[in-house]
């Protein structure tokens, strides 16, 4: 390799590394700050490595509020919403991508157009609607809409389904399968990577959702982690260590899910490391 090329490559790696360090710094800082002994936390200039790892900070923070309950609530809401969105969005996407029918174009345009509507417009009437239905202070407002498909994921799945040749349905129809069976037994397995992507993206959204629980839940026993953490924050402004510890715990499930499924999000190159 010529000297110039080596110099350029070294420069590239140096840039990549620096950028990565800056971008990941908040994670590092939250993590080590959550482990410092209380006295060290208040020090200025701050220490960049805790003098002692105070793991008991986590136990203290976790038990200071019913965070175990919030955690269970969050897991329940997220799981239900993710099941709902993958089932409904794939069904709707199948209908839009694999059939020709009257009004299809208009429906597709309408579907994309709804993505521009801000929550501000919908939140007040939805609150009234849910309160009329008796859904306030239940998890239904956080779960049920996911069972009716979400435009972004429908669009994502449609784009994939359009690339599959017609032969699949035609062969299956000759074998006597009905359309629902074709969708469920042939296309669902084929959509696996896109379904995993949908599930991961929606999991991240629902797990971190703050506004939904803020508006639709009142009973503190029903709180999810984000709202529990936010109320905890406003109740005791000084205890940064505990808030950071809860934030770190809250980050773990998204991190685990992301690392398990990262090839579905980042594309195949992420795993193999592109040829040098």
């Amino acid at each position: 390799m010529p000297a110039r090329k080596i110099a350029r490559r070294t420069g590239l790696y140096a840039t990549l590394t620096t950028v990565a360090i800056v971008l990941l710094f908040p994670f590092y800082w939250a993590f080590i700050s959550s482990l410092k002994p209380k006295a060290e936390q208040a020090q200025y200039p701050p220490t960049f490595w805790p003098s002692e790892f105070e793991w008991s900070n986590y136990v203290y923070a976790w038990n200071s509020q019913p965070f175990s309950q919030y955690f269970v609530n969050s897991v329940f809401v997220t799981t239900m919403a993710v099941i709902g969105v993958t089932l409904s969005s794939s069904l709707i996407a199948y209908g839009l991508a694999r059939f020709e029918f009257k009004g299809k174009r208009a429906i597709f345009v309408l579907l994309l157009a709804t993505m521009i509507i801000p929550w501000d417009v919908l939140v007040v009437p939805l609150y009234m609607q849910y309160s009329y239905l008796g859904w306030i202070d239940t998890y239904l407002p956080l779960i049920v809409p996911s069972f009716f498909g979400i435009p972004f994921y429908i669009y994502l799945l449609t784009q994939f389904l359009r690339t599959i040749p017609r032969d699949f349905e035609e062969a299956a129809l000759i074998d006597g399968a009905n359309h629902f069976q074709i969708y469920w037994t042939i296309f669902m397995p084929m959509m696996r990577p896109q379904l995993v992507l949908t599930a991961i993206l929606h999991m991240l959204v629902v797990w971190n959702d703050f506004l939904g629980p803020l508006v639709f839940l009142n009973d503190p026993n029903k709180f999810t982690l984000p709202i529990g953490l936010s109320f905890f924050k406003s109740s005791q402004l000084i205890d940064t260590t505990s808030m950071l510890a809860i934030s770190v715990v809250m980050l773990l499930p998204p991190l685990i899910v992301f690392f398990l499924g990262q090839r579905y999000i980042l594309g195949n190159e992420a795993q193999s490391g592109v040829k040098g």
Partner: protein
Amino acid sequence: MRLKGRHKIIPYLFILPWIVGFIGFTAFPAGFSLFMSAFDWSIVGEREFVGLGNYTRMFEDEVFYLAMANTAKYAALLVPLGLALSLALAMLLSKNVRGMGFFKTAFYVPTLLTGVALAIVWGWILSDRGVLNFFVDALGGPQIRWLTDPGVALWAVVLTTFFGQGAQMLIFLSALKNVPSELYEAATIDGAGAGRRFVTITLPMIGPAIVFNTIISLIAAFQQITVVLNLTGGGPDKATYFYSLFVYQNAFVRGNLGYAAANAWVMLVAVLALTLLFIKLSRRWSYYEV
């Protein structure tokens, strides 16, 4: 596949959940919200028809202007900065060298820190005796009261929401990979430098991705509430009092549901107008039709 006879109903059965959901969770609430905006409608007590009263009231409400201005300022800072960062990251990642998978992961991971946890972590970084001030100090800069000085608090919100550009970055990355390398080779032979290749080839070729990312981040910026509510609470001195906070408080704190509905519709129209204007402008310089 086109179906015949009584089978014609089948595609509609597949999309039925969306139709029901669209009516129940989008169309009806949106229509009802427009209806409400014509009333003086409070959580408790009587409601009274006021026609366009809520809309004219807005133009006399100082807080409306303030919230709109804050949100516009925030969007005007965050959207271009976010685009620049995500494009720069994508360009770094588009180089064919060993170990890129690791950096791709590292650049995406900040996106996972969002919402309340993001506000808490950055609240700690930005505090008066926080680590950012330590770095500023070390570089010889003045102490900045990020969260308590009305002059800089908006920047604190921008900074907090700046790192999570993973989705935009991936969209740019796939757009960059689709630019034919012959274009760059031909331009290099013709003596075009890196800057010139970027302006005359890269930017026009990834035009659709720029338009898409701009629109998505613009819509998101206008709806920002979770971070401000948990980082600054709209303060200090209403310096980060964003439009969504204005709508939320009018509805659920002050209980003026009709006024809040009108506020929200003004925002929808503003976002829609900005989006359409941007798409129109982008047709002039983008390589593809959007």
